[in-house]
């Protein structure tokens, strides 16, 4: 066990040295977290404060990225918006990850009729246009950020479940699992002790990409006017800027750029993790 841990660490180290996507993704997330913590120090204004300059262009009166129609400082709003995006990304993908792992793991491991029913459900849910469902629920149940996060989480499990099911199906036949069966461990014990921990890696990588998706979904909801009005989010900045697009392009433009950068960071991290967690992937250092 100890040796395996060291091998894992060595692989992460190797990935960090030779896989630029992993490196960039990790660095990006570290920077984002640092910005969340340091936001009060770095912000030039209180992002909630309505200033006197409405729609001031970037650079005027100490507003680095200009102001919106209410005189709020765009730069400070973007800094504080990181928190919202990361929160949405983390919580919703945790929910979808846990749901996916449990449902998919159970389907793959138990097999038979359970698997048949769950697989059909997964396929059906994969076909349903998720965004319309999210939109419907948020519109009807209220648009607090908590609701938004939960709804994104509970609608995005099928992809994870599909991956986990495939993992469980193949793990079930492995010698160490059959050994555990022979030792008389119960099915639930085996599921939680051997199947889930060993099969979870593809889900982790997929969930990281799911974080990017969650950020985009939150932004889209905000753009439809379904965001939480009590918090600062990039989607709402784009939405608010839409009506002033001809006179104040900067309100939407910079918030969108921040969204893109953050989403790219999570894409890179997801691709990097995919390389780290896939034992068949050879980093470029080898073979050359």
């Amino acid at each position: 066990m100890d040796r395996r841990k060291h091998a894992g660490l060595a692989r992460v180290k190797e990935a960090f040295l030779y896989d630029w996507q992993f490196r960039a993704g990790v660095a990006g997330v570290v920077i984002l977290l640092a910005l969340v913590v340091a936001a009060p120090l770095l912000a030039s204004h209180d992002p909630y404060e309505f200033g006197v300059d409405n729609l001031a262009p970037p650079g005027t009166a100490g507003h680095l990225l200009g102001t919106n129609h209410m005189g709020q400082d765009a730069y400070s709003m973007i800094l504080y918006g990181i928190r919202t995006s990361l929160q949405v990304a983390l919580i919703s993908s945790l929910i979808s990850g846990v749901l996916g792992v449990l449902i998919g793991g159970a389907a793959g491991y138990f097999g038979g009729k359970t698997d048949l029913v769950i697989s059909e459900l997964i396929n059906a849910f994969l076909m349903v246009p998720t965004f319309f469902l999210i939109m419907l629920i948020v519109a009807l149940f209220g648009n607090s950020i908590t609701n938004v996060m939960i709804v994104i989480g509970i609608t995005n499990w099928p992809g994870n479940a599909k991956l986990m099911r495939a993992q469980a199906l193949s793990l079930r036949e492995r010698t160490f699992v059959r050994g555990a069966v022979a030792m008389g461990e119960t099915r639930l014990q085996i599921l939680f002790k051997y199947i889930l921990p060993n099969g979870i890696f593809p889900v982790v990588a997929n969930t990281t990409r799911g974080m990017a998706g969650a950020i985009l979904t939150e932004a889209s909801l905000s753009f439809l006017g379904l965001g939480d009005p009590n918090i600062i989010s990039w989607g709402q900045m784009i939405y608010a800027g839409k009506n002033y697009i001809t006179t104040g392009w900067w309100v939407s433009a910079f918030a969108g750029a921040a969204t893109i950068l953050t989403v790219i960071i999570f894409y890179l991290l997801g691709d990097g993790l995919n390389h780290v967690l896939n034992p068949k992937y050879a980093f470029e250092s080898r073979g050359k």
Partner: protein
Amino acid sequence: MKRYVIRRIFSAILTVFIVLTLNFIIIKAAPGDPIKSLMGKDTNDPALRAALEEKWGLNEPAYVQYGSYLINALRGDLGTSIIYNSSVNSMIGAKAGPTVLLGLTAALAALVVGTALGIFCAQHEGGIIDGLLSAISYALDAMPSFWLGLMLMIVFATHLGLFPTSGMTDPRSSYTGFAHILDILRHMALPALTLALVSVPGYFRIAKSSVVQVSNEEFITTFRAVGMSEKKIFSKYVFRNAILPTITTFGITMAFLITGVTLIEIVFAWPGMGRLTMTAINQRDYPTLMGIYLVVAIGVSVVMIVVDVVYALFDPRIRYE
């Protein structure tokens, strides 16, 4: 083949049933009272409430409502809008055309351009153009479609004045015939471009990776070894094998596309189902919302089934499995 098609159709029916049920549960469980919004804030007459509940069937027990909802939906009747008092079918019917027009145009453009660029980059893997296009595709994938729409609007409509910013036709002039089509095309240019741009990366990636994969297959190396011309290898073996996954991608991106169309329609004030959805949400127009969700879900499943069947026709490996 027959078994495969039957299986797929069964999945589609199941999906539609799940969507219907979800729809019903969500709307029943949701807070908010449609009768209250019909009566107005200050009226609280129990007789009026009872009459309205009677009229809309809201006084029946939930399972009866579910039953009649299912029967009506299966008959193709989506009910009556509580706000506009007109049939949901006709409201959606009037808006579906523009949405399908915009969505299909963008999807086909993305399919052709994305696949072509993907094949090109696979043949020139590692080159400057490949690197550049891969980076652009990564960025486009990360872009909120509505934001891209706004930015294109600033550049091409506001600053350059090349295209109109909103609508489907010019309301000041009533063109007919060819001029009318041209007018619609001019209005469609920016929304379709936005949608196509955000859809291209999917086709680009899948085309590129499948061409690269097929090119590394041993039978291709064998053809090369026996001296078959590169042109023939490509057109006869690589292209055919590589184009197949594109068909599946078209089906898979359907749900993504319809979401994109909804958002883009709102940016460019395109008179389609996106805007209908928006108004229905704001007015808590339950039957309209349910109808839209249902139509979209059925539309997407039907397209996906057709795509899967078409795929099976082209690729014998699927249907003999």
